[in-house]
Structure formats: structure tokens, C-alpha cells
């Protein structure tokens, strides 16, 4: 067993028992990257030197007998839309290919305070727009379980790196499924936290009312550790909630499933979902039922409209958020211009890829005069209705269980020319963002060709603890979820 194959909680224990050093852990991960990265392609930037320096700092503190934070000395990699001071943050776009933020995102400040070891920045769909990681300006990340398949997106690098053992933990961001879908495709665990529980300060904005940063890991305890480290109110993000958070690990238990009401929303098991995915997800539900949970069929009737509402709201916000990229203060600037307008237009036309342009155009359209009521306002009203349907459903059950994706990972290039097909991948995940709820994706088996299948647990707002406890129980029942892809 190599160190890179272990979980953060196991490594943290070994560090404290002096069974290994942070430098050894970090080197094990960096060596794994050297062996596999040319095939997987998770990283945009690798910060080997600073990572090793940070590891040595932790080792020195450990040698001096000082107390360590839970994540001290543990390798973590970060999606490349989260600002890291002095480390290039590109959003996998030509537009930001040379951007070095002068500040850290709040989540990075929190990880630094814990002395986590930042290994590098991870590939993604350009500006987090996509479900396959294929719209990156730099490279296409591959699924570590099958290299001719996509890792899912937009946090494809974050999921692939954890699955490949190229890091222990990672951060991604989720606007419509961008953490959960790649977690499902790559056979790892991914959490989309409650909107407002993790600061978005320093996360390059895509759709501000839906975006949320969240953790990837190979064990439920690791997910709860990383979530504990990053959640909390932040004066620099006015949308973060004022509230106290429990000590998630302290209360992390093998939940007593007896009497736990798990809702199975029938709309999430429609014909659009593959038979194999349905079977495996329902088998997982059955396992929970055999151990005391009560399964209830429930209905969320507006689910079918959620994707439309999502594309209207997210594109509208994106068109507004991405207006800042104009070639003036930072980022790419064209060389071909003779006046200001031409500079704007050529900078943006050369700096953005097609998917980003399509969404900016769509967002501009739905916000334009005469169409605002027909599209944007209708979508916001539907959002309210979806939120109400979830609230009503949580009166009769404690959790919802659904598939994460409609199918397992698809082949690279298979859906790049058809936006509607690509968007349909997100059908089980977007409702959660629209309603601002927390949801976790857990591996629950494989299809006939060995590709991972994911199930999604959805909880009421700020009920992450119940997600962790039930996930932990499931993890125990199936004998663990930590699986590094063989490469």
C-alpha cells in the first residue's frame, strides 16, 4: 500500500503516530502524479516546490511536539477557478491563462491556516461551463477508470485527481452538478454544500446565486473533515449564512437507520435514466432499507422544468458576471485593435471558447428588453416553486435518494456538438442548486464495463450532518469506498 492510496484521516493519524512524515506523503502524491499525469491530465499547474516546503514546515512542528490542525500536512488540490495568491488561476480559459491573483479565496486562507499542503490547480471546463471537462482551453482530462471516457464536469480535474491518487483531497465548485457529476463518473465522493455555508469570496463567479465550493474525497470522514475546514460565515461574502456549525467529525457516526425516512422521487427514475444506473441506485436504497430505513415514494412534479430554469438563470448571471473580462485591468488582451470597442470585442472573441460565448449570448438574450418577463422572471418563479416542493417533501421524509447522473461516463467527443444532450447530463443535479440544498454523491457500484455509478443523497438546508452520517453508514455496510483507479 502506497501513501497516496490512503485517506486523509488515516494519514493524519499516521502523522501523529510518527509512522510517516508529511514530506513522505507529499512525495508519494507527487510521484504518483509523475507516473500517471500524462495519461489522466488532471492538473493545469503543479506547485511541487511550495508543496514540499509546506510539508517540511508541518514536519518540523510535529517534531517539536506541537499540536496540528486536522488537515495539517495533508495534500489538497484546488479547482482552477479558486483564487490562489501568486499561483496562476486560469479557469481553464485563454482569458485568464496568465492571471496570478493578488489574494487568496477565503477557502484557501482556511486551508492555509490548517497548514494543508496545496499540490496544484486542477483542470475544469472553461469558466465551469460544461459537464465533461472537454471545454478547457488547455487540455482534456480523462477518466482514470477508462481513459477514453470523460471524467465529467465541470470539476473534472478535481474528481479525476482524487480517483487517480494524484491527490488525497480536492476542492471543486458546483453550479448545476459540477461536483457531483464528476464524482459519480470517477467513483469518488463529492459534496455540494448548502448555498451560503461556504464562502464564495475568491471563487471566479459563474452564476453567483447557484455557485458553491465543495470537497471531493475517497471517504466520508474525509469529506466531513474538509467541509468542516471550509464552511462558515465570511464577512467578505454577504450570501454566507450567520450560523454556528456543529463539529461534524465528532458527531460522525454510523447512523442508526431505524425509522429514517428516505424519499425516492419518482421523477428521478424516469426513462432518461439508464437501467443499470436505476438498478444499482435502487439496490443501494434497498440495502439501507434492510438496515432499518423506511423508503417512501415521493413526487417532485416540477423536476422536468428545472433544467430550463437552470439554463436561463445561470446564463443570465454568467453574461453579467463575465462582462468584467474586457482586456483592461487583468487577463488576456488582443493584439489586434485600433480603438476601444475593437479591443473589447477582439479580446473577448479571442479569449473565450464557444461554450462560454453561447452562454453569454443566451444570458444576454433572456435579460434583454422584451424577453425578461418571458424567460428570466418565469425561471425565477419556477425556482420558487421547486424550493417549495422540496420543502413540502422534507415534511414527509428526512432525505432523498436519487441517481447522480442519468448514465455512467460517456466517451470523449461523444456529446461535444450537441449542447442539449450535454446539458441533459445535469438533470438529476440542477434542482439541488436551484433549491440551494446540500447533496452528496457516493459511489454505488459499476456498470457492465466497469465504469462507476453514483447515487445522490439530498437533505434539507444546513443538514449536512445527516448526509454524512447516512453516507458513513452506507460506506460501512459496503465495506468502504476508498478506491484508487488502477493506471
Amino acid at each position, binding site marked *: 500500500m502506497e501513501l497516496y492510496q490512503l485517506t486523509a484521516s488515516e494519514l493524519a493519524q499516521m502523522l501523529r503516530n510518527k509512522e510517516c512524515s508529511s514530506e513522505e506523503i507529499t512525495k508519494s502524491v507527487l510521484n504518483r502524479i509523475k507516473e500517471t499525469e500524462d495519461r489522466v491530465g488532471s492538473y493545469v499547474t503543479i506547485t511541487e516546490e511550495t508543496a514540499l516546503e509546506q510539508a517540511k514546515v508541518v514536519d518540523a512542528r510535529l517534531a517539536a511536539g506541537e499540536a496540528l490542525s486536522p488537515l495539517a500536512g495533508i495534500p489538497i488540490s484546488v479547482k482552477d477557478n479558486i483564487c490562489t495568491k501568486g499561483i496562476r488561476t486560469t479557469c481553464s480559459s485563454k482569458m485568464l491563462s*496568465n*492571471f*496570478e491573483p*493578488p*489574494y487568496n479565496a477565503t477557502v484557501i486562507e482556511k486551508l492555509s491556516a490548517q497548514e494543508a499542503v496545496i499540490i496544484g490547480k486542477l483542470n475544469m471546463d472553461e469558466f465551469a461551463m460544461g459537464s465533461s471537462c472537454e471545454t478547457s482551453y488547455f487540455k482534456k482530462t480523462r477518466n482514470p477508470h477508462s481513459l477514453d471516457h470523460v471524467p465529467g464536469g465541470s470539476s473534472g480535474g478535481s474528481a479525476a485527481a482524487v480517483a487517480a491518487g494524484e491527490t488525497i483531497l480536492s476542492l471543486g465548485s458546483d453550479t448545476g452538478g459540477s461536483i457531483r457529476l464528476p464524482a459519480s463518473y470517477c467513483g469518488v465522493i463529492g459534496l455540494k454544500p448548502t448555498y*451560503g455555508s461556504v464562502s464564495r469570496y475568491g471563487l471566479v463567479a459563474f452564476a453567483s446565486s447557484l455557485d458553491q465550493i465543495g470537497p471531493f474525497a475517497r471517504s466520508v470522514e474525509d469529506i466531513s473533515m474538509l467541509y468542516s475546514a471550509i464552511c462558515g460565515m465570511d*464577512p*467578505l461574502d*454577504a*450570501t454566507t*449564512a450567520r450560523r454556528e456549525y456543529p463539529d461534524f467529525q465528532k458527531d460522525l457516526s454510523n447512523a442508526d437507520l431505524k425509522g429514517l425516512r428516505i424519499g425516492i422521487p419518482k421523477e428521478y427514475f424516469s426513462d432518461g435514466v439508464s437501467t443499470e444506473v436505476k438498478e444499482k441506485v435502487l439496490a443501494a436504497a434497498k440495502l439501507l432499507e434492510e438496515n432499518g430505513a423506511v423508503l417512501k415514494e415521493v413526487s417532485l412534479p416540477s423536476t422536468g*422544468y428545472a*433544467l*430550463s*430554469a437552470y*439554463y*436561463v438563470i445561470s446564463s443570465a448571471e454568467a*453574461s453579467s458576471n463575465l*462582462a468584467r473580462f*474586457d*482586456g*483592461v*485591468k*487583468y*487577463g*488576456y*488582451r488582443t493584439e489586434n*485593435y*485600433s*480603438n*476601444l*470597442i*475593437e*479591443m*473589447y*470585442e*477582439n479580446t*473577448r*472573441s479571442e479569449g473565450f471558447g464557444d461554450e462560454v*460565448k*453561447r452562454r*453569454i*449570448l*443566451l444570458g*444576454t*438574450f*433572456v435579460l*434583454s428588453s422584451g424577453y425578461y418577463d418571458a*424567460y428570466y*422572471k*418565469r*425561471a*425565477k*418563479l*419556477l*425556482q*420558487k416553486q421547486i424550493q417549495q416542493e422540496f420543502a413540502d417533501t422534507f415534511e414527509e421524509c428526512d432525505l432523498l435518494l436519487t441517481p447522480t447522473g442519468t448514465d455512467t461516463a460517456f466517451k470523449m467527443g461523444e456529446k461535444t456538438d450537441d*449542447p*442539449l444532450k450535454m446539458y441533459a447530463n445535469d438533470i438529476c443535479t440542477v434542482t439541488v442548486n436551484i433549491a440551494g440544498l446540500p447533496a452528496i454523491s457516493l459511489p454505488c457500484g459499476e456498470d457492465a464495463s466497469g465504469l462507476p455509478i453514483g447515487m445522490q443523497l439530498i437533505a434539507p*438546508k444546513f443538514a449536512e450532518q445527516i448526509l454524512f452520517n447516512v453516507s458513513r453508514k452506507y460506506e460501512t455496510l459496503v465495506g468502504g469506498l476508498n478506491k484508487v483507479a488502477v493506471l
Partner: protein
Amino acid sequence: MKIDVQHLAKLSRLHISEEQVAKFEMQMQEILGMVDNLPELSSEDCLIDPQNPMTCRPDIPQNNYKRDDILKNAPQVQAGCVVVPKVIE
């Protein structure tokens, strides 16, 4: 419905080539077709989450960044200022 992609491109400060116009128009038609199926709902207030009333932090100036650090990312800088083409004719 006809979507004037070139007009939207102008509003968005983007150039879209003629062959891309046709492709984008078709793809946007499909996406909007999906949106046209949204049900008619009647309601007025839909924007504020009553459970999370946001508050602004006090407006206190803080000296967080050095001018040179901020300007490091600017494409063209002269004498501590960002250089742009002539703005007023």
C-alpha cells in the same frame, strides 16, 4: 422565434462569424424551445430568501493591496496607470 445572434453579439461585445451564427442560432432555438415549456406561474415576490437576509459589511476602507501588486496582471501599464486606447474622441 427569430433570434438575432449578431445583435446579441454586439450587446455582448463578441464577434461571431457567419458560419457560427447559424450554429449558435439553431442551438439557442433548441435551448429556448425547452424554456418555452415552462409553466405559467403567478407570484410577485420571488427574489429574497427570508431565511437569509443579507447584510452589507461596514464601509470601512482597508489598505489591503499595493498598487504594484494589482497592476501586475494588467496587460499594459505605464507610470502606475492602466493603458487603454483613446476613450473620448
